[in-house]
C-alpha cells in the first residue's frame, strides 16, 4: 500500500495544457456539421423549453455547430416561427428553411397532443428533406422531461458518432525508448506520436524503462483538447524521487485534479446500450 501511494505521487511530473479545438475528425456524418434545432407545435403549449433544452444539450455533449431558435431567428428573420408553422411538419418545407439557415440538418422538435403530450424529434436532411431518424415519445401533460431523459432521446435520434468525442494526449518524456501504456494497452515507445483518445475520460498513463523508476499518472482528457504530459523518468541510481524538495509542492495540485476526475467517473456504468439489426 505504501509503495502504491508513492507511485501515485509521481503525478507531479504531469502538466496539462489545453490547446484548443482539434481539427474535424474525418467521419460521416461530419461531427461538426451545422444543425438547426427548430420547434413545431400543433395545438399544444406543453414542454415550452423542449427545443431550447435540446439545443443546449447538443451543444454540451457533441461537437456539432448547433443553431438554436435565437440564432436561427437572427439569421432567418422574425418570420421564422411563422414559416416553420406553415410547413405543418412537411419535411421538404422544413429542409428549405434549413438550407436558408446554412444548416446541414434540421432537428425538428415537435410538440402536439393526442391525449398525452407527444414529443417528436426528427432529424431532417436540409439537402433533400429526407427524414434520417425520428422518435416519438408520449409524456403526461405535466411531465417536463429531465435533462437526462432529453439526452436519452437525443442519443436515439442523432447518430451515435455525434456523441463520441476525442481528445489528444501528447506525451513528451525526458528519455527515449520508454514503453508507453495507456490503461492496459501498450502504445509504443518514446518518442511517441500524439495519441487520439475518447473524451471526456480519465486515462492512466504508465511509462517504464529498465534502469528507471516507472512513471504513472492519471489524466483527465476533455473533449477536443490536447493534454500534454511531460513525464520525467528518474534513474534508479539517483536519490529516490520522493525525497526531492518539489514533490510535496506539486502533488497537492495534481491530487485535487484527480479527485475531480473521480467525481465524474463515479456516475457509474452506461444506462443504455446500442441496438442494431446485423446484415442478413
Amino acid at each position, binding site marked *: 500500500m505504501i509503495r502504491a501511494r508513492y507511485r501515485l505521487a509521481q503525478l507531479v511530473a504531469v502538466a496539462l495544457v489545453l490547446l484548443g479545438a482539434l481539427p474535424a475528425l474525418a467521419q460521416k456524418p461530419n461531427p461538426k456539421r451545422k444543425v438547426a434545432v427548430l420547434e413545431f407545435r400543433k395545438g399544444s403549449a406543453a414542454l415550452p423549453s423542449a427545443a431550447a433544452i435540446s439545443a443546449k444539450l447538443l451543444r454540451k455533449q457533441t461537437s456539432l455547430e448547433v443553431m438554436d431558435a435565437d440564432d436561427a431567428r437572427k439569421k432567418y428573420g422574425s418570420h421564422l416561427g411563422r414559416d416553420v408553422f406553415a410547413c405543418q411538419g412537411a419535411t421538404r418545407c422544413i429542409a428549405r428553411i434549413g438550407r436558408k439557415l446554412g444548416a446541414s440538418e434540421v432537428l425538428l422538435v415537435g410538440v402536439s397532443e393526442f391525449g398525452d403530450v407527444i414529443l417528436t424529434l426528427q432529424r431532417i436532411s436540409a439537402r433533400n428533406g429526407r427524414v434520417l431518424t425520428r422518435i416519438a415519445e408520449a409524456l403526461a401533460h405535466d411531465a417536463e422531461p429531465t435533462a437526462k431523459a432529453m439526452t436519452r432521446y437525443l442519443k436515439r435520434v442523432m447518430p451515435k458518432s455525434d456523441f463520441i468525442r476525442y481528445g489528444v494526449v501528447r506525451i513528451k518524456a525526458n528519455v527515449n525508448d520508454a514503453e508507453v501504456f495507456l490503461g492496459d494497452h501498450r502504445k509504443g515507445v518514446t518518442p511517441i506520436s500524439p495519441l487520439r483518445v475518447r473524451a471526456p475520460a480519465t486515462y492512466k498513463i504508465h511509462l517504464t524503462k529498465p534502469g528507471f523508476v516507472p512513471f504513472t499518472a492519471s489524466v483527465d482528457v476533455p473533449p477536443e483538447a490536447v493534454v500534454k504530459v511531460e513525464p520525467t523518468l528518474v534513474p534508479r541510481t539517483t536519490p529516490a524521487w520522493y525525497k526531492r524538495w518539489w514533490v510535496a509542492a506539486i502533488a497537492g495540485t495534481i491530487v485535487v485534479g484527480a479527485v475531480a476526475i473521480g467525481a465524474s467517473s463515479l456516475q457509474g456504468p452506461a444506462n*443504455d446500450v446500442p441496438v442494431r439489426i446485423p446484415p442478413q
Partner: protein
Amino acid sequence: MLAQRAKLTACLVVISVFEMACLGEGSVEVKLQLPEDPDLSPLQLNIGEVTLMTEMPGEPAHSQSQQVLDVSDGVDLGRIDVGDDVKLTLSMASPSQRLVGFGRSAPVSVEADSDVVVPINVRRPFVYMTGGLNITVFDSTQDQESADYQSAIGVGGSPVLVAPTPDGADLAVVSVGGNGTFLSLVSTSTHTRRDEIPPVALGPYPTDVAVSPDNRFLVVAHEENPGGQGGLSVIDLAAARSGASSIQFVPLAGVGGVVVSNERAFALVGRATDFGCPQDVSSVVAVDLNSGATGPTVSFDHGIHDVAVARDGHTIVVADSCDDSLISIDVDDDASRVPLASLTDASAVAIVNDRVWGVGTKAPTLTEGARLELVSIPVSGNMDEMTRVALPPAEERAKSNSFNTPGQRAQQVLDADALIAYELAVVPGAGHIALLTRSVFQGEESGDLGGFPIIPQMELRSWEYLLVNAATTSIVQRQRTKCTVEWDSFSLPWLDDWECGSLPEQDVVAAPGYEPLKISVLYGAK
C-alpha cells in the same frame, strides 16, 4: 503529512473507478428470424422504415424509427436503456407507411456490459380466416388489386378455429374431420402443418381458441351439446410443441368464446350471436389456468356478444349490444362496471396494448342502410382520447337473370337492414382492422305492370370479410364468401329469376361459398 496521505488515498479511488469505466460497452443485436418460405417474408416487400418499440416494466413504451434502403444491410436502431424484462417490438413499414413486417421478442435482460442477441420472429401481419375447406390467408400488406393478396393453407379436416401464438411462430388450428376434433400447429414460417407434431385430439363442438400472452397455455372452448360436454380444454403449449399432449378439461356449460391472460381464461358462457339485443343470458367465468378452479363469475341479465381481456389480467371489456356500449369490468370487483364508450349494437371487441377497439352497428335510416361503427378508447376510459369512425353504409346488389337479350340487365341495389360484425381482429399497430360481417338486405316489391309486380319482394343475405384502414375508413380488402337471395315468386313478378350481384370493389367467392367462422391476425389482437 497526514493531509498528503489522505489526498493520495483519494487518488487510489480514482484509479479504481477509472478501471471500472474501462470495461467494454454492451450491445443488443436483434436477430431477425424470417420465414423459410421467401414468399412470406417481409423482406420481399419494399421497406422504407424500421421502428423499434421498447417496453420496460413500469415505464411508458417508447419507439425510435430509422429510414432504411435495405434491411439486409443491417440497421442501426440507436440505443436502448439497460434493464430487466425488456420487451422489444420491431415493425417494418413501406415507404407509404403501411405495416409490412412485425415481430415481438420475449422479455430479455439488457445489460450495460454484455452483448445480447434477441431473436424475433418477423412476419407479415397475415389475416387468417376459417370456415372454408382450408384456412384462407389474407396478406394485409397488399391491397385487393394485388393478385396474391390471398392464399390458402390446407391442414386436413375442416379448420374451424385459428389463433396465432403470441411468439409469432405457429398457428393453433382446431379442425373437425372424420377423426373428430383435433388441434394441429401450422408453422408461420412456411404456412404448412407441422407434421412432426401429432394432432391433439379434443372434445367436440369447439367454439373458440386463444393462447396466453406468455405462450404457456392454449385454451379451446367447447359448447355443450348432447354429444359432448361444454367447457375449456387447457393445453400446455410447450408440451404440445414437443409432441406430448397435456390437456386439462374444465367443465362449463355452453362456452361460446374465450380470452386468455397469463394466469386466467375468461369463458363467455351463453354468448349472443344474433343481430341486436338478444334475449339470452350471458356470463363471463374466470378460470385459473394452473389449477382449473373457476370463479369469480360476472353475470349479465342479457346476452353479451364478445369479451376481451386487458394486459393487467383482471380487467375485461365486453361488447354489450343491449346497453349499446363497451363496458369495462374488473372481474375481481364485479361492482366496478364502467361504461367506456357508447356503441350502438356493440358486437365485437379487442384490446391492443392498452387500447380498446370495438365495433357496433348504426341502425338504417330512411335514406341509408345500416353501417358499421368503430370506436377506439384507452382501457383507462379517457374520453378525450376516444376515436369514432363510421364505415360507408352497407349495400348489396341483386341481379335479375330474366333478360336473355345481350346488353340488357336489371339490378336492384339493396341497403342493409340488419348488419353485425361478429369477429374483429386488429392488425399490429392498429392501422388496419379485420372484420367478419353478416348482413340482411330486404327489398320491397316494386313496379306494377298489368297487376303484377316487376320486382318481387326479396331478401338477400351475405357474409363478408373486410379489412379496413382505420385512419381513412377505406376498405382495402373486401371478400364476400357467401350470398343467398330469396324472392316472392307467388306474386308472379315480371322478373322472377334472381341471383346476388356484386359491387365493383367486392371480391366474390363462387357459389355456394361458405360462412366464415373466425379471423385472427398474426401478432394482432382480438
